[in-house]
């Protein structure tokens, strides 16, 4: 006996088969429902239970929304209108919404934050979408200065004097380019700092006394509501990404001192609750600063929130860096790219792409954490809500205010989330 079937082993295909449509039971709504809703009895029971739960929630919540009262001056009035029925009293939002948005910002100056909010989208457009002309980036770079001027008011010259410090720093960097890295970096940092410390103030007030260009100043304590959340959130987001990149690179550096400084910073800041950093900002910093210095509370909070987010950001980006194959570094090296060019052109674009979900996660976390500033006496939306609920008119209102605040935060965060998904799709080039 042979160990194969002589008739069946030799085989030559003479025609290749062309692809055919799948059977009809494998397409359409029936297939979808069977696969997703009723795939076995566990799945069927869960589907029925879930539908029941959703139905129950809708039946109970519907009257509350349906009977909403929009026009009333107090909770008592709301209740009179409702006449015993359950219903939401959205009138509290209608009466107080300007306060919820602007805090105690002077009403005749509301146009300034509103204008800035609109311009914010112009400023971030070229960063978010490559189709926007690159020249708009100049506006993005100037936007922070414009924002500080319009929000806090005061002399335009102060802002320009501060801005001039960056120009001076750039000129020093170009001028000392040939003196070696240490000297160049040192001077690029020292000269502008010295200028800001000694010259910028007198210079600004000097010019302002000759050619005054001023808008009404607004004190930090008048800031509040969503405005303060957006100011702290946007500043924190804009600063924490670049600082986080530097910190992540620092942690991977071959230079031991830089590496250890980065590690200590990250581990310290990550290991401490944000609220303690905020208390430090509001209380302790005053002990360390020279007496008489007026270091703005909001600025201090922005610094602390930024440092906090930076530590997280650095770790997220380190994850992205770790996911890159070593071959990418080697290929960049082998082509003769120096460290910074390799980072900028090869490593960071890929590492940041990998880290997008984590980066946006950190952004969203930071934005929501801005509500913690209520504990150091800044009247953000939560603080405003508590103040509103403490008035005799609205005592007893809970859900409406917090649903409104939650909804506004949700819109911002959902927007960021959608953008990050769009970005991930746009940057997907691996086609695997």
């Amino acid at each position, binding site marked *: 006996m042979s160990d194969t079937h002589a008739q069946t082993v030799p085989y030559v295909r003479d025609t290749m088969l062309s692809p055919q449509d799948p059977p009809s039971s494998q397409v359409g709504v029936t297939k979808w429902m069977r696969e997703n809703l009723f795939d076995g009895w566990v799945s069927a029971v869960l589907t029925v239970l879930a539908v029941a739960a959703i139905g129950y929630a809708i039946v109970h919540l519907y009257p509350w929304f349906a009977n909403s009262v929009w026009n009333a001056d107090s909770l008592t009035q709301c209740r009179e209108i409702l006449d015993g029925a359950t219903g939401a009293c959205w009138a509290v939002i209608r009466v107080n919404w300007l306060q919820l948005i602007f805090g105690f910002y002077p009403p005749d100056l509301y146009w300034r934050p509103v204008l800035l909010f609109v311009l914010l989208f112009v400023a971030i457009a070229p960063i978010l979408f490559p189709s926007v002309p690159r020249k708009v980036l100049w506006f993005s770079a100037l936007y922070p200065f414009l924002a500080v001027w319009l929000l806090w008011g005061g002399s335009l010259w102060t802002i320009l004097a501060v801005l001039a410090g960056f120009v001076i720093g750039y000129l020093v960097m170009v001028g000392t380019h040939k003196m070696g890295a240490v000297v160049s970096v040192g001077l690029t940092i020292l000269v502008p700092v010295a200028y800001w410390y000694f010259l910028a103030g007198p210079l600004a007030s000097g010019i302002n006394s000759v050619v005054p260009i001023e808008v009404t100043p607004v004190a930090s304590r008048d800031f509040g509501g969503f405005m303060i959340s957006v100011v702290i959130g946007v500043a924190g987001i804009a600063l924490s990404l670049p600082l986080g990149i530097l910190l992540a690179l620092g942690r991977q550096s071959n230079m031991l001192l830089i590496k250890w400084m980065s590690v200590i910073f990250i581990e310290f800041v990550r290991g401490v609750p944000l609220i303690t950093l905020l208390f430090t900002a509001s209380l302790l910093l005053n002990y360390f600063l020279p007496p008489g210095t007026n270091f703005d509370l909001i600025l201090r909070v922005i610094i602390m929130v930024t440092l906090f987010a930076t530590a997280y950001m650095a770790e997220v980006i380190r994850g992205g860096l770790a996911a890159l194959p070593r071959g990418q570094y080697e290929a960049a090296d082998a082509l003769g790219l120096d460290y910074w060019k390799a980072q900028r052109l090869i490593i960071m674009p890929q590492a940041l792409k990998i880290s997008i979900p984590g980066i946006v996660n950190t952004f969203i976390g930071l934005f929501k954490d801005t509500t913690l500033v209520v504990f150091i006496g800044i009247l953000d939306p939560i603080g405003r809500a508590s103040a509103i609920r403490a008035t005799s008119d609205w005592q007893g209102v809970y859900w409406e205010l917090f649903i409104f605040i939650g909804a506004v935060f949700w819109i911002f965060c959902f927007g960021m989330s959608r953008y990050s998904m769009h970005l991930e799709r746009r940057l997907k080039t691996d*086609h695997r």
Partner: protein
Amino acid sequence: MEAIADRNINRSHMQVSDEVAIQITNMNKWYGQFHVLRDVNMTVNRGERIVICGPSGSGKSTLIRCINRLEEHQAGQIIVDGTELSSDLKNIDKVRSEVGMVFQHFNLFPHLTILENCTLAPIWVRKVPKREAEETAMHFLEKVKIPEQAHKYPGQLSGGQQQRVAIARSLCMKPRIMLFDEPTSALDPEMIKEVLDTMIQLAEEGMTMLCVTHEMGFAQAVANRVIFMDQGQIVEQNEPKEFFNNPQSDRTKLFLSQILGH
């Protein structure tokens, strides 16, 4: 070996000059306690095509990676094109821009198109204007026979195509020396031929090449010297014909019988 049997090699430009391209003297390297390269001495003249082979772990990849300082050597001297490799970053960048390297896993930049992969280093390292860099890139992409893929991303190409792009990317820097680190080891048999063809073409044009490979057919066809390494040392080197037909050391004989014997 059969991959290149059907090709006639044009040897008119394959000339070894007296000029020294790479000089390695008493070079040693350790990974921690492990002595990977032991007293390596080697001179490569301009126009030489050298194939380095040996069992895995013999230090052959490490050797050519030392030549553009992807690995640091701890003792001895490596001089490439008159520039000594030391910790001086300027020298390292100079050598790296003169020496092209092709990797086993291609290492193309997946976030850039094929064309951008090829123009990146000329634009940022050589400061070539973008248009000129793109013309050069297209020239070399035509040479490796994939100009039509210029606007695709590496992930859309087959392994063989990716490796040819990697070769084109190196050539765009107009290197005087090319290093190949097992360029065909990660490829399917059908794709090995197209990459080897490209490499043979390069050899025919007189490029100085150091190639770590187990493609003995390639070695016989274009190499002027085959180096056999084991345990971090050069065990034997000879002209390909002598090397294959009349190996001297027992270690070489064993190695050849294992890779050619079946």
